[in-house]
């Protein structure tokens, strides 16, 4: 078996650690890659992470130049990647094997969009973790739950529920309450902490109260 996902992870974390040290571009891993650490173990095919390029005075095009130098490859071509990212603030590209999609969310500050608000929040409270012997930055457990509740798909809620069931005793509940309130997801959060222990039941109840 080829270590496709592992190799992509090694290439990406080495790159992210380097650009943080050399260019001052802060990052943190988010989403599916953290399920082994924070939630129920399941498979994923991509790697999600956030990168604060604007605070380090990089534009999308400058950043793409660094990606090219570090053996990342576009899905179609880099011009198209840049054009899409101008609108979405998400860069999508491939690792050097061209086997794993890398979802690079760009941190946008002072945005009214609830999906964009998650980036700065996660970056501010990021934590140092160790995955496969590699030290890297990742979103905190609380912010992991928050982002999953904001995105709100079935798998997102299941991941949030898994994290809650595993770590409810050590999570910072005051922080969780406050930010859920700010993001308009208090109902989702309240339900998560209500004792429900199955994703389908969570959805059923959420439909009733929404």
């Amino acid at each position, binding site marked *: 078996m080829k270590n496709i996902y592992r190799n992509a992870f090694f290439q990406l974390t080495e790159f992210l650690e380097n650009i943080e040290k050399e260019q001052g571009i802060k990052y943190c891993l988010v989403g599916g890659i953290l399920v082994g650490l924070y939630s129920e173990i399941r498979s994923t*095919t991509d790697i999600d992470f956030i990168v604060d390029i604007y605070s380090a005075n990089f534009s999308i095009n400058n950043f793409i130049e660094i990606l090219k130098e570090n053996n990342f490859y576009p899905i179609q071509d880099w011009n198209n990647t840049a054009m899409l990212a101008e609108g979405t603030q998400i860069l999508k590209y491939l690792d050097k094997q061209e086997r*794993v999609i890398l979802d690079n969310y760009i941190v946008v500050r002072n945005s009214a969009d609830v999906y964009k608000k998650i980036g700065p929040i996660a970056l501010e409270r990021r934590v140092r973790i160790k995955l*496969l012997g590699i030290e890297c930055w990742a979103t905190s457990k609380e912010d992991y739950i928050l982002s999953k509740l904001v995105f709100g798909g079935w798998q997102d809620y299941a991941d949030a529920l898994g994290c809650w069931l595993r770590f409810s005793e050590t999570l910072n509940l005051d922080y969780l309450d406050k930010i859920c309130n700010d993001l308009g997801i208090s109902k989702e959060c309240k339900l998560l902490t209500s004792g429900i222990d199955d994703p389908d039941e969570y*959805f059923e109840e959420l439909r009733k109260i929404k």
Partner: protein
Amino acid sequence: MTTDNNRNYRKLSRGFKNKIKLIDRVPIEDTINLFFEICDLNLNNYIDIEQKRFPEKSVKKIIIEMHRKRINLKRRRKSEEYL
């Protein structure tokens, strides 16, 4: 079988709470290794199957199409089933 029975069956077969309890007993390094193992296994399997079905297709194309399918599935679940 009624819808409610189906749901109970789904809950029992998934055993979400017990799975979480089990994960908590496994050392963290092992859960991380297991995660990477599962991801690699599934990616390799998917590529193998698709290459057999469409020998002319490049692996890059297989990966991009897989990603698009996943995104569409996620969107559909979100808009139609739940919210």
